């Protein structure tokens, strides 16, 4: 590894640290994509039930954690019940911890305000099975109670009783939610994604197979602005903007340097 590459790493680190410490408070607008997800949840009746699936690995938490928290906050604030689950084993504890933490802030109790179903492998059969009977796929919740014995679980039999499914994901799981839940059972799906997945899912959003997309730290920051409660997403956006500006400058400088080298070689050959 050459020294210039290490200098670039150091510069990126310095830019992030400086932005985190100085907090310049750079302006950020809210995109229509994020606003449409916010409006969708805002349009749900108080008392509706939203299913949130934590389909991500632990390594994606810095990105999808603030995003999931913002959506969970919105649901709890509006009195919407949340059924949590995970189709990725690594998302299991992260989802349970997030829901428990935010529920305590909003005074929502386990059983009536939210329940957590836990993890199921074989996402295909899990997603299809819940379209017929959620209790058949998850007979016990994550805490070991019978799902139908909880106040929220007794109200929900299948996707017919679910107003919206939110897949908090860092991979291809929202595709399977579209294929097996939306296409077959016509349930609305929202994808809360890492930024790297956005271009893969925009076609599904444009075709209305996905009801909404909200993505990355920027999506979290936008959602927090709509909620009027800046949190982890907004905190990271200054650093994100600073690093992006630095990378753009480095790309331009690298291209100018490359053009100069090619030009001088051309002159030399002539």
């Amino acid at each position: 590894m050459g020294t210039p590459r290490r200098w670039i790493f150091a510069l990126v680190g310095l830019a992030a640290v400086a932005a985190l410490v100085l907090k310049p408070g750079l302006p950020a607008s809210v995109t229509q994509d994020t606003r449409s997800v916010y409006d969708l949840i805002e349009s749900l009746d108080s008392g509706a039930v939203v299913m949130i699936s934590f389909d991500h690995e632990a390594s994606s938490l810095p990105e999808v954690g603030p995003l999931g928290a913002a959506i969970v906050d919105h649901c709890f604030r509006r009195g919407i019940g949340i059924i949590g689950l995970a189709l990725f084993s690594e998302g299991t504890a992260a989802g349970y911890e997030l829901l428990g933490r935010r529920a305590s802030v909003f005074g929502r109790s386990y059983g009536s305000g939210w329940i957590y179903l836990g993890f199921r492998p074989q996402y295909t059969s899990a997603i299809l099975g819940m379209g017929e009977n959620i209790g058949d796929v998850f007979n016990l919740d994550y805490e070991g109670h019978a799902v139908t014995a909880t106040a929220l679980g007794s109200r929900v039999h299948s996707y017919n009783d679910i107003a919206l499914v939110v897949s908090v994901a860092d991979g291809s799981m929202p595709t399977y939610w579209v294929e097996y839940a939306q296409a077959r059972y016509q349930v609305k799906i929202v994808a809360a994604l890492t930024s790297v997945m956005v271009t893969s899912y925009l076609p599904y959003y444009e075709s209305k197979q996905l009801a909404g997309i909200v993505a990355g730290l920027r999506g979290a920051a936008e959602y927090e602005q709509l909620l009027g409660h800046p949190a982890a997403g907004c905190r990271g956006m200054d650093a994100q903007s600073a690093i992006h500006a630095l990378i753009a400058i480095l790309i331009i400088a690298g291209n100018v340097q490359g053009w100069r080298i090619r030009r001088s070689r051309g002159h030399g050959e002539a």
Partner: protein
Amino acid sequence: MTFIETTTTALLTLAIYSFLAGDNPFYKFAEHLLVGLTIGYTLVVTLKSVIWPQAILPVTQGQFQAIGPLLLGGLILLRPFRRWAGWSRISLALVVGGGAGVAIPAMLKARVLDQMAATVTGATTWGGWIILIGVLATLTYFVFTRAHRGAWGTSARLGRYFMMVFFGATFAYTVMSRVALLIGRLEFLMGDWLGLLRT
């Protein structure tokens, strides 16, 4: 988190980032720890959330319908034993056959038919027309049985430009995603661990 937990997490984060200076024993240790923990965690979660409530518990309560799937699952575990490995094919055949039967129609509908319908019917706005032209031009690029000359070649070249835009946007989003992960770790190191960030 307690101070010990925070410090352990911080040191492991630093061990992973030490790879930027070159491969070293601290990075190797953290990497192997991550792999081992991930496998162990998945095993425990699967036992707690699936094997116990869906297989063992029903059988102990006299509900014997779980025995069939348990037996089929057990057959797959015979795969490492050469003498008995053939029995695992029964379970694998069921998984592959059932999986393909479920997946093919669903994928065809969601990924091809619905996408095609939306592309055609969506061509009522400027954006919709750009998408339709982009799809057709990109498809012509992938027709290799006809020479890319004349109007066909122009369309294929246009398709290549559309793909370049897609790759550029995807790469930019990838940078954005990785930067977000770095910011998350720096916030943890400077805020939760060292207490240098004001909230």
